[in-house]
């Protein structure tokens, strides 16, 4: 059974993510200290809420996670956890992200034509190819709830649209991120989690 470290930094509850990982047959543990993540075959950074909440992921946590990535272990960021993989966010300018992906997060809806937060089911547009979206059909819908987005870069593998196009899924080698909630996106979401576990 694959051991996944689920990082608990106090941003929201982890019950749903744990439940979804259990449903696809992965074993989950929540390391209490950075050094506890050593046995992990994969690391997931979940999260909802404000970017400032990631502040509790200090340098020691960052180093522990970076070390895992250095060993080729896969890392998945979900929602706020995905935003944290980038350099930072306009939501909390003083708060540094992990910086394994290039760019800075910004607020959706600058044009003021849509409601923000973006809450609900929205479709994914992408060219198949990236392993994290393997087996998923372009146009499939997933559940989002967020106000900020990560920049569209060469690491973007799927996009969605809410007043503007934004990055819904990113992947760079063993590092992946989803802006939506796979644990709340029915069968499509469970498939993304299975794809991630397959990277281990």
């Amino acid at each position, binding site marked *: 059974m694959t051991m996944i470290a689920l990082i608990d930094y106090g*941003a*929201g*509850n982890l*019950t*749903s993510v744990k*439940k*979804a990982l259990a*449903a696809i047959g992965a074993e989950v543990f929540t390391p209490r200290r950075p050094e506890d993540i050593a046995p992990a075959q994969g690391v997931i950074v979940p999260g*909802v*809420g*404000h970017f400032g909440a990631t502040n509790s992921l200090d340098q020691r946590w960052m180093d522990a996670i970076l070390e895992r990535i250095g060993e080729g272990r896969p890392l998945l960021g979900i929602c706020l956890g995905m935003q944290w993989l980038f350099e930072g966010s306009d939501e909390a300018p003083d708060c540094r992200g992990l910086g394994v992906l290039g760019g800075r997060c910004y607020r959706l809806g600058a044009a003021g034509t*849509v*409601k*923000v*937060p*973006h*809450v*609900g*089911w*929205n*479709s994914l547009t992408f060219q198949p190819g990236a392993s994290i979206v393997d087996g998923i059909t372009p146009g499939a*819908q997933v*559940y989002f*709830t*967020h106000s900020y987005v990560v920049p569209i870069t060469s690491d973007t593998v799927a996009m969605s*649209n*809410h007043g503007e196009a934004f990055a819904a899924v990113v992947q760079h080698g063993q590092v992946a991120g989803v802006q939506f*909630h796979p*644990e*709340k*996106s*029915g*069968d499509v*979401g*469970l498939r993304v989690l299975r794809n991630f576990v397959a990277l281990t």
Partner: protein
Amino acid sequence: MLSKRIIACLDVRDGQVVKGVNFEDLRSAGDPAELARRYNAEGIDELVILDITATLEARRALPATIRAVARELFIPLAVGGGIRSEADAAAAIDAGADKVSVNTAALTDPRIITTLADRYGSQAVVVAVDAKRMPPEESAAGGARFAVYARSGQTAVNRDAVEWAREAESRGAGEILLTSIDRDGTKRGFECELTAAVSRAVSIPVIASGGAGTLGHFVEVFTDGCADAALAASIFHYAETSVRALKEHLHAHHIPVRR
């Protein structure tokens, strides 16, 4: 494009789903987990569990019911009824709720909205607003006005629904669950005038509730009512329509839905 959400509401009392008319005359509609499974298989976008007598009986929403429903569902689940404190919200969220819905407690002390939003994020905080149309003589020149009620529709609180929704948003609410007491359980259609007024006044999503009776009512509330989501109970419980048939109908009327 963002889909319009279809939400099934499970009004729960003593562990059983019940449904009434105008918040009264409750009758049983089945087991919560069983109904949740059925709706999920049919493609429901979200579920709400409301412990409808929790506030009146001054106790917490039933964690066992939440747990049973959350166990096998991988779609968003909101829980309301009897959430009066941060500890009540924590109990619901720990049992598997993704969002909590506050109503009476927020009217009593609106600071609870901010407390919960600070702890769990705005996306986890739904403010439920139960409203009744005011008599014409009390309405403004611009249109009807709607008064807010607390305690499962039993107590008028002397607040205007549009103003209260605006305040809830400014205090950190992530969504408004807006129920027309006049239409609840009547199957006469959603109160589109109320829904549109609130939806235009806030920038957070508004879930319309109360009055769904036909497929056409859902088309109306997404067009005339400017709703972001529509919630229904009886129409699904008694299998008058399936979630799938409803979505096909909305799709045929060019309303974006998840299919």
